[in-house]
């Protein structure tokens, strides 16, 4: 019962924060005055802009926005890669050596793409300098890149110029990510997340064993990890680790942090569009989808594992912390995969089959709140596709927000639709073809399929969580997921911005009674159905062979 109440409270918090934060985001990206921030941030921002020689001219074409984006992302990645490859002795209390090249490359790209898959054990691999200078740096820049893309896309759909990438990036960091993370980090700190550069402590446990406690600048790292929907843990156990997520309260905050910005971005979209009802309906849609998935995940974990009925009863607690229990772990799993964060507070691999289906499903859809900035963009792409499919049925060539949806929009939208299965299913099929050598599957049967598919889905969706039993620290896994990481990040970004720029240039058609209204309950329901059908139909076979087959096998066992 308390599990369900937590869900309700969580959703209420998201709905309460969305308008507040949404207003803030709208002000930031619409360049409106913010008396609270302007006096001390404008000098900083202007200083940075002057230093880099940016005059802030808005992009005239999509490539004017994309070029600096791609170039700076390349450099961000190279900086991080350098730290990992060389791992100097500074801030390196354990004296850790350089990271293996393929792992370093995979890690740099994984964090650069806001994914944060970790094919290494952080405690044993990364110095504090690498954690801060490579990973935390990318936490900020990748999240800011996502936000910039999201708002450039929103501007385009609302018929405005895309904006200026460097300005967007800097303002996202100075006005959104740093202030919010700072507050969140302080709360985490007070609750027990360490914030120190001191090295690990070796101690004798009460029973006399040697235990090594790794500490570090965790609180700051953790805050931007969640808020930026990054998800890469300071520790191997990620948010299950007590230093990252000390108690249920920090857990609640972490969950709110993961959904806060995507939900607020949807709200801010409504403000940009001048139609908040549209945004509220979209928020309602993803909330309802989220609730359905959360309910499935929580109830399947609460149901427990019938194979173990001889020895125990109650919910499935394998891979879960006592302080969170089955309910909060299942809820967290739904949120972290819905929002493309990828932080986990329990083992995804050990979830019940349907509990594991939920995160996988989230990764396939990518819109149940979705990634930083990109979530709302994908949601709007589905809106475009829905308008196109159903809009014809009112007898007009389809239009969205007063602009015609034509070949160009459909090309880019459906390209985004195509990219995902391409970068998930194809590598998964290759890996499973050579399963004994390549896959590193640790759980037998259908579960192995879920492990492999999950890893690529997580990479292509830029989520970063994993069915971590998978032996993924290999050359094959590092290199093959890099393809999915890059393909799943930058191809959609290019497509999104090209779409937005072309859309903005179209003449505006005034709405009339013959116009298909997209801000109605009916249309929102239809959008939901289209998301489920177009987003999930492709993946239905692997879902069937993976988690669904595993679930049936449990039913039979019972």
């Amino acid at each position, binding site marked *: 019962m308390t599990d369900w109440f937590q869900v309700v409270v969580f959703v209420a918090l998201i709905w309460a924060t969305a308008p507040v934060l949404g207003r803030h985001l709208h002000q930031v990206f619409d360049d409106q005055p913010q008396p609270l921030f302007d006096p001390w941030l404008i000098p900083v921002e202007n200083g940075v802009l002057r230093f880099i020689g940016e005059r802030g001219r808005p992009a005239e074409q999509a490539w004017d926005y994309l070029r600096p984006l791609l170039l700076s992302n390349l450099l961000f990645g190279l900086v991080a890669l350098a730290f990992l490859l060389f791992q100097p002795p500074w801030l390196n209390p354990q004296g850790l050596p350089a990271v293996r090249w393929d792992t370093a490359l995979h890690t740099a790209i994984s964090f650069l793409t806001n994914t944060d898959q970790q094919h290494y054990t952080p405690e044993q691999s990364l110095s504090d300098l690498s954690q801060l200078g490579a990973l935390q740096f990318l936490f900020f820049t990748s999240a800011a890149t996502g936000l910039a893309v999201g708002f450039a896309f929103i501007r385009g759909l609302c018929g405005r110029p895309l904006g200026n990438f460097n300005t967007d990036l800097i303002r996202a960091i100075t006005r959104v990510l740093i202030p919010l993370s700072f507050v969140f980090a302080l709360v985490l700190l007070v609750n027990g997340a360490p914030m120190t550069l001191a090295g690990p402590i070796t101690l004798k446990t009460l029973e006399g064993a040697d235990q090594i406690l790794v500490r570090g600048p965790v609180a700051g790292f953790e805050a931007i990890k969640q808020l930026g929907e990054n998800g890469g843990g300071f520790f191997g156990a990620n948010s299950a680790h007590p230093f990252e997520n000390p108690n249920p309260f920090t857990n609640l905050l972490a969950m709110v942090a993961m959904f806060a910005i995507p939900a607020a971005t949807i709200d801010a979209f409504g403000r940009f569009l001048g139609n908040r009802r549209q945004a509220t309906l979209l928020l309602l849609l993803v909330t309802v989808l989220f609730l359905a998935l959360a309910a499935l995940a929580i109830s399947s974990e609460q149901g427990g594992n019938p194979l173990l009925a001889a020895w125990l009863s109650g919910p499935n607690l394998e891979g879960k912390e006592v302080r969170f229990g089955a309910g909060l772990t299942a809820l967290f799993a739904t949120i972290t995969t819905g929002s493309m964060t990828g932080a986990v507070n329990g083992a995804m691999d050990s979830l019940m089959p349907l509990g594991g289906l939920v995160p996988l499903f989230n990764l396939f859809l990518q819109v149940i709140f979705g990634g930083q900035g990109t979530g709302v963009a994908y949601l709007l792409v589905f809106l475009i596709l829905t308008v196109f499919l159903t809009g014809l049925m009112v007898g007009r060539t389809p239009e969205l927000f007063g602009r015609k949806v034509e070949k160009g929009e459909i090309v880019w939208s459906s390209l985004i639709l195509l990219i995902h299965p391409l970068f998930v299913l194809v590598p998964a099929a290759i890996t499973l073809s050579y399963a004994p050598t390549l896959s590193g599957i640790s759980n037998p049967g259908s579960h192995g399929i879920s492990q492999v598919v999950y890893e690529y889905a997580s990479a292509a969706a830029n989520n970063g969580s994993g069915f971590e039993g998978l032996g993924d620290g290999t050359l094959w896994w590092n290199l093959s997921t890099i393809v999915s990481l890059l393909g799943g990040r930058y191809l959609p970004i290019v497509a999104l911005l090209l779409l937005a720029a072309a859309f903005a240039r179209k003449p505006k058609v005034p709405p009339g009674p013959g116009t298909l209204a997209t801000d109605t309950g*009916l249309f929102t329901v239809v959008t939901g159905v289209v998301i489920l059908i177009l987003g999930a139909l492709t993946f239905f076979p692997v879902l069937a062979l993976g988690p669904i087959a595993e679930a049936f096998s449990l039913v039979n066992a019972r």
Partner: protein
Amino acid sequence: MTTLQPPIFPRMPRGRRDQRRYTERPRSDGLLGRAVLQSFVKLDPRLTVRNPVMFVVWCGTLVTLAATVEPRLFELSPEAPGRGFNALLSLILLATLLFANFAEALAEGRGKAQADALRRTQASTQARRLLPDGSEALVDSSALRRGDQVRVSQGEMIPADGEVVDGVAAVDESAITGESAPVLKEAGSDVASSVTGGTRVVSDMLLIRITADPGKGFIDRMIALVEGAERTKTPNEIALTVLLAVLTQVFLIAVATLPPVAAYINSPTPVVVLVALLVALIPTTIGGLLSAIGIAGMDRVAQFNVIATSGRAVEACGDITTLVLDKTGTITLGNRLAEEFLPVGGHSERELATTAHAASWFDGTPEGKSIVRLAEKLDAVTALQMDTATGLEFSARTRMSAQLLPELLGVQEFSARTRMSGTDLADGNELRKGAVDAIKGFVRSRGGTVPDDLDEAYERVSRLGGTPLAVCWNAEIQGVIYLKDIIKPGMRERFDQLRRMGIRSVMLTGDNAITAGVIAREAGVDDFIAEATPEDKIAVIQAEQRLGRLVAMTGDGTNDAPALAQANVGVAMNSGTQAAKEAANMVDLDSDPTKLIDIVTIGKQLLITRGALTTFSIANDVAKYFAILPALFGQAGLAPLNLMGLASPQSAILSAMVFNALIIPALVPLALKGVAFRPATADELLRRNLLLYGLGGLVVPFIGIKLIDLAVSALRLV
């Protein structure tokens, strides 16, 4: 010299509009047979490859055929489906292809039949070309060039499109209009001087200047259009094709990656079954019917006796948000009739009637004739010497005003065109009737005064929705003629429908603002432009377009041509000038301006049909998954997904495929006729169509596949 047979036009929709709508063209014999033949011809991969969805089915058919010849070609496992199953599957896939081809061929065939009939009128004729020295030479009609002059006598075919330079003749235009009554053609008149190649002179003789090179004439264009030779995909069709192609690729990825995944848990995936799964998932229904829907849309427009120059134009009709309509002939019956004489300035009714009678004596327009008739009814026959008088052309209808001869009238310059006519008597008396302000101007120019009660009479007529015509005898205004406008029955309902569809109607009229307002209110149009000149038309269209609206209009005169070209959908009347027809993107052979409303409906119907079948097609996938996946992966533990309780894996696969094939011919009538369209708001339409085609698309295949499965297992096919 003459053609042997009179041209046959396969359909001649006539009579009242509501009856005409259902006039089915007599289906020419062999249409079905030809379509069947064409369905096989279209199996040619070079043709199939243009349709990505059907091309995938085509490739799949090859695979299953190969597996029929040698079942062990793709798999060695003994559980692989046998030859019988593969053969059945191949047949079903082949049928799917043929059904799709048949739909397209059927749609094309109807156009072809029409084109053939037109082509018969094109039989090469001889023409008498005028040489510079004035002599004539017999040349083949194909040798004629733009600018040549030809002489065409009674019984001869007009060799090419042209303009009458000299002569008056009756011309039978039934070949293109279906209207058997001959039309009078004469030089100098804007409308009546244009002739169309392939029509026949039935009396007298015409001297014609050719205006179109061979192969570029009106009939040539019509043939190319109805035949589909120039059929390019419309923008919306292209966008939809892109989406369908991408969906096909997505499902191709989903299916192609399945074998290694299934192999991992030791579940076999026979290639033929994968082909079946792929074909079931890709949107074959809409893929197979898409081009048929487009052709049928053009065809439906043609059934209304309208020739569209492109599918794009028909599609644009669905998007129209503003209709610009002429009042006269469209909203009101073409002929206004004189209803009453309203004397002013102390003149008697009889006095006024007598002057009106004289002023209208030379006016051949229906209005003028009605004035004469009304005056005669009042016994106010003129005692004037009409045989010595000079007639001045009437110009109450704005577009006629161009023919006025101001210098002959000797009036001072008006800013607007002189909207009046009259009679100059031999004794120098000038009798005029016309627009009130025009007459006022005339009177003032002659030093006369305007009676105080003129405005009162003017307003009274205007408020009744009538057209007031002032009448003067020299500088003395005697009164006002009340010309009554009669709004066509049912117009109000039509405009209400349009409004519900989100279409604004703007009425253009030469009437004064009060009259126009009354008529607009009575007819239920949303807006009107009073005292409009031809230039106003284009201004109205541009203003609407600046607001982002899409505008449709009708027109026939040469001065309408710029506006027709400016409008997003311009419908020229076939009775109109060559220039108007060139500028428009549709030509109405019946010259019925109200037809615009029907064309809009057809455009919408076309789009709705496309959307409905796409939705239906994609929604079908859910049921097909639940039929094929449990059949394919029963061993892997997915048997419980067999929600429909299908008899056996093989029968499940076959049933899904049979359903997939049969749904195409089942939907052909819908694709060709278009879904039923009732004017309603977007929301109402969406709700209704979603329920029908979205929900229907989810549910119908579950029922259909189950029924087919019952039949398949009862027949012991597998």
